[in-house]
């Protein structure tokens, strides 16, 4: 039937073109505990102002690192630098220094297709130019794997990602008809379907209710427990304390402190960084630090 022969024909054609487009090799997963992302003295200047000022950061496989800090502290800029989005040259007073290594190789030495198999990025804002159906959007996360895995594996990864984020029932809906929270979860599903060892999430919980916030962070935590490395920008210090193995507190483009939440979430440090007095108390049942602003 025509319906069956079309994809077969397409695979033949793409196989014929494959030597031209140099298919990337399958990624090798780094062992748990080994370094996957390292930032060395990353400095980003825009308009004469340093958004990041000599940031050193290391993320290991099997770890969930939360980036926290006040507005404008450089959380998103740091995540953009780690994902390779900050590529400003020395023009118009912009000067970037330092290096970011992914799996022991500097970012510029990776090609975009190679990077796409190793790290996935969830941007802060979710917008789509055309009204794609949800299932197609999530399947876009599989694009880097085209020609590298069986078609069944693509379907399975898409279905698993949609089940995990609770958007399976939205498969046939078009993106613009979704609510803010649904959009955020669809975009997360797309990133999860990309099935990479390194995951970078920029405020994945911003548009979500409490239940979905917990869902998203428990997914992220599970991925790190399974040997992935997750870097997540968070505003909610309670969530960071509950789910992150390690937190890095950014302030004015520098890392003010990093370490286990229980060690770095102190009233004096947070009060200083956020310019607002806070109280830090252990949760009566779990012992996880709770951060409460002084009212």
């Amino acid at each position, binding site marked *: 039937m025509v319906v069956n022969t079309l994809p077969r024909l397409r695979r033949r054609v793409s196989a014929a073109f494959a030597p031209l487009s140099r298919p990337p090799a399958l990624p090798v997963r780094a062992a748990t505990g080994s370094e996957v992302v390292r930032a060395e003295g990353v400095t980003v200047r825009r308009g004469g102002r340093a958004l990041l000022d000599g940031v050193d950061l290391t993320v290991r496989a099997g770890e969930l690192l939360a980036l926290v800090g006040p507005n404008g502290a450089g959380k998103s800029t740091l995540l953009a630098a780690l994902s390779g989005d900050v590529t400003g040259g020395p023009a118009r007073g912009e000067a970037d220094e330092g290096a970011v290594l992914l799996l022991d190789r500097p970012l510029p030495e990776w090609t975009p297709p190679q990077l796409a198999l190793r790290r996935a990025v969830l*941007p802060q804002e979710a917008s789509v130019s055309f009204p794609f159906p949800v299932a197609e959007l999530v399947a876009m996360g599989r694009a880097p794997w085209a020609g590298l895995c069986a*078609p069944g594996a693509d*379907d399975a990864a898409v279905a698993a990602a949609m089940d995990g984020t609770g958007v399976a029932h939205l498969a046939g809906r078009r993106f613009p008809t979704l609510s803010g929270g649904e959009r955020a979860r669809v975009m997360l599903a797309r990133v999860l379907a990309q099935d990479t060892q390194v995951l970078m999430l920029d405020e994945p919980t911003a548009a979500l209710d409490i239940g979905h916030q917990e869902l998203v962070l428990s997914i992220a935590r599970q991925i790190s427990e399974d040997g992935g490395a997750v870097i997540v920008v968070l505003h909610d210090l309670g969530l960071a304390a509950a789910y992150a193995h390690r937190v890095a507190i950014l302030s004015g483009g520098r890392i003010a402190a990093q370490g286990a939440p229980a060690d770095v979430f102190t009233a004096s440090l947070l009060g200083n960084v956020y310019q607002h007095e806070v109280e830090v108390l252990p949760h009566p049942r779990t012992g996880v630090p709770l951060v409460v602003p002084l009212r």
Partner: protein
Amino acid sequence: MTAPDTTAPERVGVDGGPPPGPGGRAAHRLRAVLLLAGLGTGLVAVSLVAAGAGAYPVPAGQVASSVLHAVGLEVGTPPDRIGRTVLWDVRFPRVVLAVMVGAALGAAGAMMQGIFGNPLAEPGVIGVSSGAAVGAITVVFTGLTVFGHWTIIAASFVFGLATTLFVYVFARSRGRTEVVTLLLTGIAVNAVAGAAIGLMTNFSQDAEIQTITFWQLGSVSTATWSKVAAIAPCLLAGLAVIPLHARRLDLLALGEGPARHLGVDVERMRLVLICALALLTSAAVAFAGIVAFVGLVVPHIIRMVTGPGHRVLLPASALGGGLLLLAADLLARTVAAPAEIPLGVVTAALGGPFFFYLLHRTRAKQGGWS
């Protein structure tokens, strides 16, 4: 469907049911195949009718028979000698040129919307057609013949490409193209191009003015086989980028950053596609003048039928553009026969109100422009 039962048994087993995706996808794929087949059939049918219609009518059956005889199949009754001459020397070149110009404009419109990430981008609206026309008219005005027959195409390509790049650079900010900026840029570009064309018209002789008017209004009435032969390679080269870039255009809908994170070399793709769509637009302009709105109307209708996926949208827009322009040309030369209405007037009369509706809808959806 690609035999999911054999390749994904684990998933089916775990859930105790078939995966939810493929069923809907098979229906979607069937719809896409039906759409492409329907457009292809429609194109053939309208071609036969269009080739038969005119001052010397030839029944569609005889037109088909004439074509079949030409390829060596002795089927049906071919038309008489006059009919054959009318068909092969006048009507067929015109029909083929109309289809090719339409296909080029339809595909260029769809590509442009994908690259700009904006459903209102169209070669005529944002001024690329006018830019290319300035190139073509400059050649007519100065009487340049450096590359013989190809001079006009070359000039309109250079001007079309320059205009596309200009609009692209100036209408974008921070990786997105806002509707207002895009349309205002289009107004500015069209104004400058209009000034250049007006200036050249002012200092032209009568014969040149007629040619220049031809470009401004758009028409395929001067079709010859040599023109068809000249536009064909441009069309094929422009359409050749579709198979490799359709999927990447889908990813670009997520934005430039996310597309890059999914492995797309955005800079290279942009360069290739802008060159391709400038080639398509300028080839169409060089042979048919400014025929606006085809690239706006067709992709929009296709999107309503099969969704925004570019793997169907791009080829379907090429087919649909050919069909629309062929029908518009048929209308242009029959509705006021024996007089002829310029083709660009017909498409503008149909496309203008449609653009109005699109603007209205986009505005309503966004809740304002700012």
